[in-house]
């Protein structure tokens, strides 16, 4: 593949790129996040940006969107050199970015969120008018949304639509989306792609950062791959396939772990009966759930996100009160045990929310590495924390679990998404769990890193750890789990042996298809 061959076939040669980034460099303390990167986007193109965790994708796009300033390099928009000092200026040139964490005002309506801050409102809001306006744009692009609904009532997929609408309303021609599909249900992904196609037909360009190669193959026109801050390849989608992309990203073949092995009959370690748990809004999030978990098995929880998985895991980890039912650990009732005593008895958990729950923002990697064991004697000399010991502990985790960080004294916020996940998982596994609860542990990980995580989990399983795994990807579930429980509206609809079921069967139970003879 030659980097110089941009687009001849698809796009008319005379057409100029809407975006042309040249020789972009960006350093952070200890790393070169972007190393002489050139990147172009043509009108109407859906451009996928790929690369391992920490390759510099988010950095490059944050530069384009005006959030970061490059150390050197030029950016041209429609042939004109621009220099952004803020995201607002980038937006004035038609470049808008949607981050993984949405930036919406929860108590405002959809229409208010779309219109406010655009500078089009002077003194008062005419609700009828802005709702009509919002409706108009949303119909143009097939974005199904109720303009009068309040944001906190919306699902993540709907909130994302509001973000897109916001950008479109501000006249955005180049939409950058950083891992937009990680929080979406399969149906919502389909809808998102339809919207993106519609935008592309109307001449708008989209840059999509993702780790899911099947999505790239499905939607992208053109692909650029980064590795360690450099462009290692780019080409039209017609010339590519998943294997090729993987090799470009990680410079080696990724071997999918083979999980299948002879069925073992580990003894039962966790026994859950008629469990009921409340959600944040006082609703019944987990309803009458019963199941057993055995040593040395992986039980996957399948289901569309938001059907009680999060609450179930939190309740088992001691983070959420149990309304009724029982949780027995090796025969002992533990439903009223607190977090610390559960950790002590070997129940560990990797939460869905990485920064904010699993890891503490603004504290250093060192401080974070002891979050779940900070009270243990081994880290103290007398009353005081012995940072030398903590540090060598941190360094060991970083090494063992392959976390990439230039300096462990840096705040956790400097780590890329994938590295955060590895640190978090490594920290939990390192405590030698007997029961490991993991919610979406490969979310946001590149193929190789995800495989690394699955390897770790399988190794844990082989050591005899009982693993409860909340996953969204059915292929992955069938690859690594032993049994699968399908959650729908707070209930476990069915628990099946993976060998005796199929993706289609699970898929239909997930969306609530009527069960016969349960």
């Amino acid at each position, binding site marked *: 593949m030659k980097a110089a061959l941009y687009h001849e076939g698809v796009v008319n040669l005379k057409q100029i790129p809407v975006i042309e980034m040249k020789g972009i460099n960006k350093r952070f303390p200890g790393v070169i996040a972007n190393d002489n990167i050139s990147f172009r986007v043509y009108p109407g193109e859906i451009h996928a940006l790929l690369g391992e965790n920490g390759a510099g994708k988010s950095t490059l796009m944050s530069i384009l969107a005006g959030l*970061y*300033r490059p150390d050197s390099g030029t950016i041209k928009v429609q042939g004109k050199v621009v220099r952004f*000092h*803020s995201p607002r200026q980038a937006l004035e040139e038609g470049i808008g970015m949607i981050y993984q964490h949405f930036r919406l005002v929860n108590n405002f309506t959809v229409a208010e969120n779309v219109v406010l801050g655009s500078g089009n409102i002077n003194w008062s809001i005419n609700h009828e008018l802005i709702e009509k306006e919002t409706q108009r744009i949303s119909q143009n692009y097939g974005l199904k949304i109720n303009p009068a609904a309040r944001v906190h009532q919306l699902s993540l997929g709907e909130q994302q639509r509001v973000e897109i609408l916001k950008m479109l309303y501000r006249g955005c021609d180049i939409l950058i989306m950083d891992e937009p599909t990680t929080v979406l249900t399969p149906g919502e992904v389909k809808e998102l792609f339809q919207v993106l196609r519609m935008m592309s037909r109307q001449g708008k360009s989209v840059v999509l950062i993702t780790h899911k190669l099947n999505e790239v193959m499905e939607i992208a026109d053109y692909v650029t791959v980064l590795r360690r801050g450099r462009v290692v390849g780019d080409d039209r989608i017609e010339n590519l396939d998943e294997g090729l992309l993987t090799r470009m990203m990680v410079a080696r073949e990724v071997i999918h772990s083979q999980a299948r092995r002879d069925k073992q009959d580990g003894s039962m370690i966790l026994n859950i009966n008629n469990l009921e748990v409340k959600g944040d809004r006082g609703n019944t999030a987990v309803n009458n759930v019963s199941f057993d978990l055995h040593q040395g098995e992986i039980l996957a929880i399948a289901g569309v996100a938001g059907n009680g998985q999060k609450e179930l895991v939190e309740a088992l*980890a*001691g*983070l959420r009160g149990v309304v009724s039912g029982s949780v027995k650990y090796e025969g002992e009732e533990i439903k009223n045990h*607190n*977090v*610390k005593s559960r*950790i002590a008895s070997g129940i560990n*958990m990797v*939460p869905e*929310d990485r920064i*904010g*729950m*699993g*890891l*503490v*923002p*603004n*504290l250093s990697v060192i*401080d974070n590495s*002891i*979050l*779940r064991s*900070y*009270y243990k004697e081994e880290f*103290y000399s007398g*009353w*005081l*924390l012995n*940072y030398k010991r903590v540090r060598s502990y941190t360094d060991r985790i970083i090494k063992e679990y392959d976390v990439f960080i230039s300096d462990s004294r840096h705040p956790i916020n400097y780590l890329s998404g994938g590295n955060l996940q590895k640190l978090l998982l490594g920290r939990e596994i390192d405590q030698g769990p007997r029961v490991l609860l993991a919610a979406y542990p490969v979310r946001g990980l590149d193929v190789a890193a995800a495989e690394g995580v699955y390897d770790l989990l399988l190794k844990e399983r082989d050591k005899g750890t009982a693993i409860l795994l909340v996953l969204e990807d059915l292929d992955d579930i069938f690859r690594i789990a032993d049994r699968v429980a399908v959650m729908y509206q707070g209930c476990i609809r069915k628990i099946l042996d993976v060998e005796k079921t199929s993706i289609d069967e699970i898929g239909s139970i997930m969306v609530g298809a009527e069960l016969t003879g349960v």
Partner: protein
Amino acid sequence: MPKLKLIKRENESTMARLVVPVLSIIMAFGCGWIFLALSGYYPEVVFTKMFNGALGSPYAISETIVKAVPLMITGLAISLAFKMKLWNIGAEGQIYMGAFAASGIALALGNGSPYILIPLMMIAGFAAGALWGLIPGLLKAYWQVNETIITLMLNYIAIYWVDYLVFGPWKDPNSMGFPLTPIFSPAAQLPTWGDSRVHLGLVLAGIIAISFYLIVQYTRWGYEVRVIGESSQAARYAGMNVARNIMLVMLISGGIAGIAGMVEVAGITHRLQQGLSPGYGYTAIIVTWLARLNPFVIIIVAFLFGALLVGGFAVQIVGVSFSITQILQGTILFFLLAGEIFLRYKLVLVREEAD
């Protein structure tokens, strides 16, 4: 047309951190200079007086320290609460409560040994301030009541309570009508340094600063405080008791502010009186904020604020009116705080192309 724009800095440069405060002080004095000249004073005379009055002699420095001590202790008290993002703006009331309880001990047990009396007063001061911190802490921990409002309202209760005492039951019969209690016995007064007014409170401030640093950075509990301050979700995930820590931190924060009150009555006024604190509890918020919660920097910033106060008194003595000194102090404060903006933002010239 080129335009000036404020741009958020990606990261604060160390250079800016040094240059900005110096520049803001220079600009503050520049402004004050013009202002004084326009009001018919000789600025150079006033500023020299101000400087000499605050820092120009051993006596001046000792007076500056005297004013700085309550700011140091209160600033430290506030910093602990702020670390956990608990906005304790009730230090003023906590100072008054501490002063009240310490005075109660001093007046009741007047003739005991200082080795018993002083520690007892300290404990009482701490306890009363702690109670004043614990009330909002409790409300926050169990019912999520906003601590800002409660701490603010409790200030008034404390201040008027002390007013009631010094105008009423505790009033010195020989005070000729002034709202004061009788003077404490020497045993209830803090030892001073030579014949200056600098008292044991300075040492206390140092001890508190060092202990806070060690506790927050190096102890188990300090670790909990740091984690809770950043994310209560993560704290719960780590098995920490967030509610208990909210109460504990508010209690200690209030208690230390109470000690500032005790130190003020035992070290300086030697009696309880109306208007005991000229707003130390509020000024200390600014001190803490400018020092970015760093205990050692709090000591330094509090000293500079002490100098500002004492310098103000010094120029008043040479006939500059009270309001003028207030305006001068206000100007300096304004520039210091405005300078903070330039630490986080920078000013750039943007050339806008005509569309």
